[in-house]
């Protein structure tokens, strides 16, 4: 392990960019699991599916970020359908919904993953864009442009969603249904429709997250497995229901992973998110800002 | 008759929300105790803290002269505190009989015959093999009480066991509670049905916004201005 302050600074810088990216890909889960309590272990798989959709759309000539944005409405609808199905089949019946719901999403993740393998093969896929491949030179440090783009999109996305949830009527209704569903019902709002809408938004956001994923690096169908660790680490570390916490948690994970990558090598990096997740579950399961 | 339960300055917070703000009360052995208060006043939170489903943030809870606020719920049940749930939580994959076998085997270490006696006393003897999904509302409430009884408690907490029941059904449940008390079981009753609380309780405490606002006999409670304001609004 070679240590120098230059390397340390570069690792931290990269970690901040990476962390924002992790926050952005986790924010959909912050809503679907953190607020709506859906055991959505298929969230990373849907995001990877979004990456492949971006790959296809970008292949028609569209910029990847734009492709992601274009896909958002379709993914919104997908999210609504998935939630509706989940609600009717599991949440309504109540008993043993926990085990069956988990098993359902686990199975769904596998189906999506194999579907992608059958459709695209196991090889890695990438997209092309002017900002992918070159780096910004900042003094002695080189920052890949694609990381800056992802960082920018991530900030905008996180800010937009946080503002939406706290300033708009529907957004506040979503937060309300997370905190006190019976009260909401008494006020005349339909909790199922609100949750459905929220899950749709979370899934729509996943489309853009998927676009960022394939911009930041190559994707392969099994990538969702690794991202189960990263996304759940961020959401649990943030604390269920906290949007701003997601950014902080993402940064912590990003910097931690970047440091491990720099000083211990790539063979240890996958364990960082999972290890951090276990530590949080062990000593402070409510996370940093949890309910 | 000695003091059975001492709740001393108990507080409980949920994030920024204070559910209980320094509640103190004392329950004597063999007493019939009523706990009333408007919705959201903290009644269920208080008994959750007493029974162990929740840990109080501050204050002490002493049962039979031992501090219990750090004990998990199952240990408190084994010490003699049993509770029924406001919304019945039967073991839905088990028959009525089996539901009672759980506390019987884990707490009372009793024999199966005991369970039949309880079912008879409570009026569910003919439903021993039924699943909870086949029971009516009042039968579910009775099952909740029967399960608490199977734990051979010294203190039984009945959480709104009569909510939504008809007049005759309320009388049925009330009789069961009176009979249990006659056998020496101390009972805390949480209820909204005022005439039941008044008939049953020897002493009543009224909770509002996490604080005790009045304590006394049923007659004095009903006339108390604070209580009336809490229920009917200022």
């Amino acid at each position, binding site marked *: 392990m070679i240590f120098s302050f230059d390397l340390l600074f570069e690792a931290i810088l990269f970690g901040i960019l990476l962390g924002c990216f992790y926050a952005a890909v986790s924010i959909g889960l912050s809503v679907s699991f953190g607020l709506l309590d859906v*055991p959505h*272990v298929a969230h990373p798989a849907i995001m990877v599916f979004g990456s492949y959709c971006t790959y296809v759309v970008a292949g028609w000539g569209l910029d990847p970020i734009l492709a992601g944005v274009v896909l958002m409405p379709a993914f919104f609808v997908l999210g609504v359908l998935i939630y509706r199905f989940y609600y009717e*089949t599991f949440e309504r019946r109540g*008993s*043993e919904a*926990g*085990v*069956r719901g*988990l*098993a359902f999403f*686990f*199975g*769904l993740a*596998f*189906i999506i*993953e*194999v*579907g992608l*393998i*059958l459709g695209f093969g196991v090889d890695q896929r990438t997209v092309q864009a002017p900002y992918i491949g070159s780096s910004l030179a900042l003094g002695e440090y080189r920052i890949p442009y694609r990381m800056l783009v992802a960082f920018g999109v991530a900030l905008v996305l996180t800010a937009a969603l946080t503002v939406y949830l706290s300033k708009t009527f529907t957004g506040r209704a979503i937060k309300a249904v997370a905190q006190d569903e019976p009260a909401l019902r008494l006020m005349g709002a339909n909790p199922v429709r609100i949750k459905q809408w929220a899950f749709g938004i979370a899934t729509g956001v996943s489309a853009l997250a998927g676009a960022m994923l394939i911009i930041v690096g190559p994707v392969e169908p099994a990538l969702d*497995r690794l991202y*189960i*660790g990263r996304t*759940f680490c961020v959401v*649990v570390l943030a604390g269920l229901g906290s949007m701003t916490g997601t950014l902080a948690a993402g940064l912590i994970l990003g910097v931690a992973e970047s440091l491990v990558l720099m000083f211990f090598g790539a*063979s*240890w990096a*996958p*364990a960082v998110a*999972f290890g951090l*997740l*276990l530590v949080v*579950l*062990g000593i402070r*399961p409510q996370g940093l800002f949890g309910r | 008759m000695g003091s059975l339960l001492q709740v001393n300055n108990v507080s409980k917070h949920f994030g920024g929300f204070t559910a209980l703000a320094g509640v103190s009360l004392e329950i004597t052995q063999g007493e019939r105790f009523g706990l009333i208060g408007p919705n959201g006043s903290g009644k269920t939170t208080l008994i959750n803290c007493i029974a*162990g*489903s929740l840990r109080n943030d501050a204050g002490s809870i002493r049962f039979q002269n031992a501090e219990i606020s750090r004990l*998990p719920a*199952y240990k408190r*049940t*084994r010490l003699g505190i*049993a*509770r029924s*749930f406001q919304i019945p*939580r*039967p*073991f*839905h*994959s*088990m028959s009525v009989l*089996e539901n009672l*076998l*759980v*506390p019987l*085997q*884990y*707490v009372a270490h009793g024999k199966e015959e005991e369970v039949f006696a309880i079912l008879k006393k409570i009026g569910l003897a003919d439903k021993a093999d039924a699943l909870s999904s086949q029971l009516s509302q009042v039968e579910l409430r009775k099952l909740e009480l029967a*399960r608490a009884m*199977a*734990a051979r408690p010294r203190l039984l907490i009945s959480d709104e066991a009569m909510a939504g029941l008809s007049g005759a059904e309320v009388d049925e449940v009330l009789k069961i509670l009176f009979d249990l008390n006659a056998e020496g079981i101390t009972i805390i009753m949480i209820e909204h049905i005022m005439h039941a609380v008044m008939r049953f309780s020897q002493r009543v405490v009224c909770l509002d916004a996490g604080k005790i606002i009045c304590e006394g006999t049923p007659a004095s409670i009903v006339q108390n201005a604070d209580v009336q304001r809490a229920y009917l609004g200022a």
Partner: protein
Amino acid sequence: MKYWIGAALLFIAALAAALSPVNEYFFYAGYVVLTFVVLSTAWNILGGYAGYVNFGTGAFFGLGSYSAVVLFKALSAPLAVQIVAAAAVGAALGFGVGIMTLRLRGIFFAIATVAILFIMETLMVNWRYVGGATGLQLLRPDVMAPFSSYTRMLFVVMALLAVVAVSVARYVQVSWIGRGLRAIRDSEEAAESSGVPTLRLKVFACTISGALMGAAGAPMPMYLSFIEPASTFSLNWGVSALAMPMIGGTAHWIGPVLGALLLGSIQQIVTVTISNEINVLVVGVLLVLFVVLAPDGIVGLFKKWVRYFR
């Protein structure tokens, strides 16, 4: 009593088959199917009886495999010792993970099992003694008479483990422990209030489950003559170990056995005739179908038909 007679007969049948001139491929495939009988039975003790879902079966199974490899490499330990040691290690992991996460909600336990899986894989990838990422080749010891091949012997060993696993599951199910676990699954809060020491029972179930999964992993390196982290610590073990009990039926010990025999056989056929990817797809689709349409599994369907025709 009927159970023990049946179990003895099945084991004797397995032994007789191993000593007969049946096609060698039967034992290659049969070993894997029997492994799944153990894994799904073990999974069900915590997942079916208590309602806590384990995604990381591969972690316990793989840890058992690697423990066996370490013992074999360092001490030339015989298979029986490997199995016992693997069970102990699996139990320790089950206990540790259980104590740490079973006091939380079910989904946190499930995610924690995935975390353990990946961490185990990373540890083994970085451990040169066991071959790191590329893995280790293993030389099988000489086969013991009366078996004509090592695979046949492993087949019989796994049959014995299957009998042990199912017997343990059956005992847990019918005992007061089983009733406590079911109470936890039905309503954990009510169980706790009824005097059930919920955390202790859950940790107990997790420990037993881990021990059996570890034991099932021990003969695997010998079966393959090879071990490497990626396939050993794959999430695929997890989805199968979960799908089989859910398809067979989680309430009764026979459910995981049926699920493993059925799905395990389908998997062997599909993998050989079509592809491994389609195999995983079949598992995923069947899992989702059963979870949605027949949540009580094959056992549940059978019970419904019996009631219908009465």
